[in-house]
């Protein structure tokens, strides 16, 4: 055969091999490669929904979203992550916390997804990176929205804050809805209402280049913005209340007795939530944590204090309603009380004693001996069941997560907790709100609310309405009536409330200082809670005692007394005296709400 023909045949055979290959690729495996090519071409991108805004009840913006620049890295486009991070650190400060958070996310997120390294870059940082951008393929600046709290510390304990999603949060969240989301509510309302505020992620199918550059959007499913929240809080009252405390630590809660709306939610000292949004640095965080006055501690929700004498109106009501005492029964107060057959003296705060007292005088002047006697007559079981109706010992169910339940002691509880029987002496001190008895400021306010509105236990609520981003309409949150306290005789309630009015407005009332010039009638009760126990013969002297061991000052009140529009509970840590420290703070809160016109 001619050699040229041999070569041609050989070439032809090679071509046949090629055709075989092409048939395999283009016909047999066509579907497979078409799918691969589609995957190459089309990427699913999340569109992050805008987080809902938070307003106060008058429409004042408390949490907003501001444009911010962030630095993002797409791992699959990076050759050496270490070199890239080190290189970036030369131009822009990268804190250790930023880096470790980034590395956590790096391990969990798909490599083609951009991961934020730094949030909220300053203009200068943006400029510095832009100049050097060519050195960092795979690193980009993107514009986004960052949470901002325009009023800073105001109401921070109620609002809470959002923070960057970290590894922990990633485990708890519905990751498909949080694709692309940077922030998640960490605490407070931001956390409780996370699902409403966050909204629903949108998706778009985009055609991209191999470098991930978006060429066009193939189809788009719009995100649903988070819902705006309108709080029951009134910034004016909140501001007045926070200011009224001066330098004191403590807490104040103001509630609208008609519906359980929380008008003021004070826990002091407070803090600025803004630094937490983009990750607070270690030094600032340590300073907050190690601060003796514990600014990060939410006292309103989690502070548990002995209610002291503020419990007396409830005790009095218990006595009257249970038929253990009457308006006219009287007791002699020699300044102390002793159990029969026991030499231990239960002291009255007034060493000289109040003389002969009835319920009205005992509440007005806060006689302890009367209530020692009443408590003993009632017995711990009655106390526990009656006071339990006012929500003591139970969390109120407020729509802020993390609430503690306080403690309303009982035989059962003592058996369970201490494996001991209940002693009568413990009943006695429970009668004046001491001993095991603990309340949170929120509980105390909720109980006061029920007292003010005639026995309606309302669930305190801090959000009164939500609003879909697409509409103007407010969807109100309906107040929730938890329980209605049975009133055996209206007169009993009227008597107790009259006594509370006398606390403020009578000559010898313990809070008369705030009643003198009050244009409206206030019903109140002072309280003083011992921080540490005095020995039998020791005398309490505020001046000689360490400030941290000084008594807590308490005051509960509602006003106007005949038609209550607001109920408050104030606890001033180490304030000393309820009448002179806590009551004036309460008065300022009442004034702010009752005297200033609603905008």
């Amino acid at each position: 055969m001619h050699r040229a023909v041999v070569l041609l045949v050989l070439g032809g055979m090679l071509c046949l091999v090629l055709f075989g290959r092409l048939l395999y690729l283009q016909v047999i495996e066509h579907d497979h490669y078409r799918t691969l090519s589609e995957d190459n071409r089309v990427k699913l991108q999340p569109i992050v929904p805008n987080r809902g805004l938070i307003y106060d009840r008058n429409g004042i913006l408390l949490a907003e979203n501001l444009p911010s620049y962030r630095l993002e890295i797409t791992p699959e486009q990076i050759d050496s992550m270490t070199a890239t991070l080190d290189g970036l650190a030369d131009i822009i400060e990268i804190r250790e916390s930023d880096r470790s958070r980034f590395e956590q996310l790096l391990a969990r997120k798909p490599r083609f997804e951009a991961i934020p390294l730094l949030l909220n870059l300053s203009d200068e940082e943006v400029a510095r990176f832009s100049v050097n951008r060519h050195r960092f393929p795979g690193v980009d600046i993107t514009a986004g929205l960052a949470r901002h709290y325009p009023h800073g510390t105001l109401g921070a304990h109620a609002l809470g804050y959002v923070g960057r999603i970290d590894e922990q949060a990633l485990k708890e969240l519905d990751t498909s809805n949080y694709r692309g989301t940077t922030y998640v509510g960490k605490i407070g309302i931001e956390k409780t209402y996370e699902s409403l505020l966050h909204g629903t992620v949108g998706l778009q199918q985009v055609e991209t280049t191999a470098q991930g550059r978006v060429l066009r959007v193939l189809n788009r499913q719009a995100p649903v913005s988070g819902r705006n929240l309108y709080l029951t809080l009134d910034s004016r009252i909140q501001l007045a209340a926070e200011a009224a405390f001066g330098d004191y630590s403590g807490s104040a809660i103001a509630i609208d007795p008609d519906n359980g709306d929380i008008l003021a939610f004070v826990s002091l000292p407070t803090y600025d939530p803004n630094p937490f949004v983009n990750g607070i640095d270690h030094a600032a965080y340590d300073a907050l944590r190690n601060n003796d006055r514990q600014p990060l501690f939410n006292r309103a929700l989690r502070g548990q204090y002995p209610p002291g004498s503020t419990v007396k109106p409830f005790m009095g009501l218990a006595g009257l309603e249970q038929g253990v005492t009457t308006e006219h029964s009287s007791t002699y107060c020699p300044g102390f009380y002793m159990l029969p057959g026991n030499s231990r003296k239960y002291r009255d705060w007034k060493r000289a004693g109040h003389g002969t007292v009835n319920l009205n005088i005992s509440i007005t002047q806060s006689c302890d001996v009367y209530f020692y006697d009443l408590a003993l007559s009632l017995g711990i079981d009655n106390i526990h069941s009656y006071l339990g109706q006012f929500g003591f010992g139970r969390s109120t169910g407020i729509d802020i997560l993390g609430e503690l339940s306080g403690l309303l002691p009982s035989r059962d509880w003592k058996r369970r907790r201490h494996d001991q029987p209940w002693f009568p002496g413990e009943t006695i001190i429970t009668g004046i709100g001491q001993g095991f008895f603990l309340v949170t400021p929120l509980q105390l306010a909720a109980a006061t609310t029920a007292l003010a509105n005639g026995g309606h236990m309302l669930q305190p609520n801090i959000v009164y309405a939500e609003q879909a981003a697409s509409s103007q309409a407010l969807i109100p949150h309906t107040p929730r009536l938890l329980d209605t306290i049975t009133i055996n005789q209206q007169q009993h309630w009227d008597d107790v409330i009259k006594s509370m009015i006398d606390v403020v407005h009578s000559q010898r009332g313990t809070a008369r200082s705030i009643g003198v010039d009050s244009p409206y009638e206030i019903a109140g009760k002072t309280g003083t809670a011992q921080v540490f126990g005095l020995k039998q013969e020791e005398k309490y002297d505020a001046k000689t005692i360490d400030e941290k061991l000084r008594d807590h000052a308490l005051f509960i009140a509602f006003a106007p007394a005949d038609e209550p529009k607001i109920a408050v509970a104030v606890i001033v840590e180490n304030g000393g005296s309820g009448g002179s420290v806590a009551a004036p703070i309460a008065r300022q809160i009442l004034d702010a709400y009752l005297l200033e016109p609603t905008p």
Partner: protein
Amino acid sequence: MNIALGRHHADASKRGWQYRLHIDAPLLLALIAVAGYGLIVLYSASGGDAGIIERQLVRLGIAFSGMFVIAQVPPRLLQRLTPWAFMTGVLFLLAVLIGGETSGGAQRWLNLYIVRFQPSELMKLAVPMMVAWYLAEARLPPHRWQLLAAAVLIAVPMAMIAKQPDLGTAVLIASSGFFVLFLAGLQWRLLAFFSVLTAAATPVIWHFMHDYQRQRVITLLNPESDPLGSGYHIIQSKIAIGSGGLFGKGWMNGTQSHLDFLPERSTDFIFAVLGEEFGFLGILLLFGIYALIVLRGMMIAIQAQDSYTRMLAGSLSMTFCVYFIVNTGMVTGLLPVVGLPLPMISYGGTSIVTMMAGFGILMSIQTHRKLLAT
């Protein structure tokens, strides 16, 4: 072997304008067709870049002119100039190894101040010419020692080019030399012997390969081992071709190429663009034109009147065949990525000019035949 030749005699009716202009019309038409087809594909591969088309047109113009000029040179003269061309080429290669310009990690370029050119391109023609020249002087089939000498003539420039490194061109030059040897009547048993020897030499060749060349072989065997590194080219080009299917996605509609997934899409991997946009049928069309070119070239070889032109024409035609088989083989993932363009289609460089010069030689051989007595 001379039977085919003896049967042929050109009659006067065929000696029209083609002979006067020294143009082979079938070959020219096929070349124009493939160049036109190439421009259409290139326009899409470049993303509709008119500038690239313009430059490619200029290059094609130069190449066709070069072909036309070389076609005027009688094969006799070509044969006389062969040793000089070869020696010049070897000297240039030596110069490149010593002081050539580096581009893309390979030292291939020689700056002659007027033009920058790759001496390896010259050798694509000079090596088959030289081997043919050497063996044409000898009695065929060649003696063992003559074969050895011819092998040296092939191996020296090949080694120098492989050293640059330019594996693709080295393979082409080796095969062009081999085709001359084969057409000269290389004994079948020697062929078998050398095949075994080559197989045995594979580990030795492996040892002398550059890391990147080894990587290409590894990648060929298992592209998925490094999908973002060296396997990326092959994976993406297979996706492009495979997703094209029978009929293709349509001109300018190849997503793989237009969205930058396909690397080197205007140059070495342009076949994948063609496969993606025109499908299996588009590839068949291309292969049809290529087959016409190769068949016409081999016909010229068969009709050639002396052993020099016969061997040279055969070698040039078959090398063109190797050219597109190696390129398409590498783009479809059958062969390692050796860096050869798709002839007449890929954007760029001197290879088109060299190739067209080769076709010029073919045309010269065809149109300078002496009239045989009828």
